[in-house]
């Protein structure tokens, strides 16, 4: 009987202790707001945020728009986070300008707001931005393509498969980064399509999917069937471009480069469909973001930017099985370990 009582008392103490620890955890909470919750990129982000939150013992609430471009739901989510008394918000904004007023509200309420992947407009509307250096991502594949071609780079015929006519910042940065890496004068670095280097056959838009990639590639091939270098905004567009090249039997003598590092894309590098791709790391963005919020909640420290940049660079690596001198790269195998989606 005595032992039973003692046991119960112990259990009670343990339970009370547990409850205390739990309430301590509940003190700090973070919000993650993504564009959608279905895109593998954001799924990976959520995974990274959850992992970090579990390790640090803070709670995480995740919200997402129903489709890319769903601005309203993101505003609702920010308001919910403020009402919940969260310590900080991680957000990949669908509408980078319109979200600013909601973000200001959150910051005024004492929350730390970190933009993930997509910088807000203006970039300093958030306390910090954790993102891929898209210009660097483009530069890496540009340098790689140039080195692959060697002296032939002077006679290259380049197709530029961009995202959309509205030229969002990620589209411009990747495009201009590639051209810079390849050694082409970009003229105005804030827009693509104004270059006059004769090596560029043309720019066309893909909407970042396979169908757009194929049509755009066909259009540019109709303009000049001799194209031998293809820049693509992302890997689905690259897969579409490959289909267009295959249709005219040129799939083996054209160099395709891309950006993203999704698992199907890296598999395409392994199969030699894409020559090289720049891989970005959504998991790290979210993990670092949650850690920054925990730090801020503890002692009010604000995250710092990477030296020389107006955001925190979460890194980018070139994935290829044909490494070249002077351009750092990782093997396809390593890329497959780190890929998302």
């Amino acid at each position, binding site marked *: 009987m005595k032992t039973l009582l003692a046991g119960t008392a112990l259990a009670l103490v343990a339970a009370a202790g547990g409850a205390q620890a739990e309430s301590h955890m509940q003190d700090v909470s973070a919000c993650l707001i993504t564009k959608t919750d279905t895109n593998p990129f954001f799924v990976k982000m959520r995974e990274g945020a959850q992992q970090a939150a579990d390790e640090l013992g803070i709670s995480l609430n995740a919200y997402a728009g129903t489709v890319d471009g769903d601005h309203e739901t993101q505003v609702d989510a920010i308001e919910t986070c403020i009402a919940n008394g969260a310590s900080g918000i991680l957000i990949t904004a669908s509408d980078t300008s319109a979200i600013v007023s909601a973000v200001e509200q959150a910051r005024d309420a004492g929350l730390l707001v970190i933009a993930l992947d997509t910088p807000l407009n203006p970039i300093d509307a958030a306390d910090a931005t954790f993102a891929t250096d898209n210009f660097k991502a483009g530069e890496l594949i540009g340098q790689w393509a140039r080195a692959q071609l060697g002296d032939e780079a002077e006679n290259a015929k380049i197709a530029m498969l961009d995202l959309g006519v509205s030229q969002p910042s990620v589209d411009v940065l990747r495009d201009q980064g590639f051209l810079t890496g390849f050694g082409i004068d970009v003229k105005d670095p804030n827009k693509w399509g104004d270059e006059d280097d004769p090596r560029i056959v043309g720019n066309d838009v893909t909407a970042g999917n396979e169908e757009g990639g194929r049509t755009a590639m066909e259009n540019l091939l109709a303009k000049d069937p001799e194209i031998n270098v293809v820049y693509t905004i992302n890997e689905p567009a690259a*897969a579409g471009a490959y*289909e267009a090249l295959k249709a005219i039997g040129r799939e083996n003598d054209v160099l395709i480069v891309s950006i993203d590092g999704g698992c199907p894309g890296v598999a395409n590098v392994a199969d030699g469909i894409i020559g090289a791709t720049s891989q970005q790391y959504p998991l790290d963005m979210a993990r670092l973001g949650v850690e920054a919020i925990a730090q801020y909640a503890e002692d009010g420290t604000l995250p710092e930017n990477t030296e020389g940049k107006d955001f925190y660079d979460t890194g980018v690596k070139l994935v290829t099985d044909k490494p070249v001198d002077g351009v750092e790269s990782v093997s396809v195998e390593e890329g497959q370990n780190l890929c998302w989606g």
Partner: protein
Amino acid sequence: MTDTDHYESSVREKRAEKVAEFESHSKGVMSRVQHALHVTPALVPLIVLIASIVIFGLLLGSRFFSPFALTLILQQVQIVGIVAAAQSLVILTAGIDLSVGAIMVLSSVVMGQFTFRYGIPAPIAVLCGLTVGTACGFVNGWLVSVMRLPPFIVTLGSWQIFLATNYLYSANETIRAQEIEANAPILQLFGAKFEIGGAVFTVGVVFMIALIVVLGWVLRQTAWGRHVYAVGDDAEAAQLSGVNVKRTLISVYMLSGLICAFAGWALIGRIGSVSPTSGYDANIESITAVVIGGISLFGGRGSIMGSLFGALIVGVFSLGLRLLGADAQWTYFFIGVLIIAAVAVDQWIRKVSA
């Protein structure tokens, strides 16, 4: 008898005389044209299509005016062309289907995932995909005809539902072209190509043309086809003359869903892979093709051939302008101009029947 009475009766007589008179003698050239267009609605887009091919041919020479480039346009418009056929059917009933693109993508994802996730033999997975498309169409048709909800609202909702289902079910995973080629080549059937002297045709292109020809014949020559026009022209009058309006509407939406599912199959052939993010704007593109093709958004008038011409006009402008080196924005600019011009012509033609 007062003077007023005389006055009234003379007006009445005049009016009666006018009704009895035939006006055809006094018709000018313009009204003859108007009449011809009213009888053959696909004539305007056909003329615009030929004119645009000639103009781009003159500007670009053999780069554009080659069997290769011209058949490339066919390949580029095949998806929109097939979807536009589905859209035409619905618009002929005075409806609109905003969910066509979503049905297409969902069907293609079902074909792909059933094959690769569950290991179902590819031909059966294709059948499942076609069934899903038809079922989606049935839901739309049922809500429109039995629940009597406006087609715009129904398909605005189902567009979101089908698209969300597509993303949730597929987890936004792409099935790569190489895997499909190795394990289930039948999924890429529509991409198979053959050449006739420099001209390249794919199974998808042949399917699109055959589909439009068959549908054109069915709409003109069968009772069902005439019912579709009748329902679109005046549903109440059709009902009173013994047409089963509900059944006709449901069958139109189901057929539209089935055609969209075929478009989904053709999409796999075109892009090689199964991608849940492709074709999301097929609804707008198909409506554009239908409108430029001279099918009236008010229902009951227009020919399905027109929607093929409409899709081809967009294709000719896209490729032509790109070959000229114009900024991609100009394509959208001119398509916008064409849409408004097409509706203006439609309104003008309508006056002949008013």
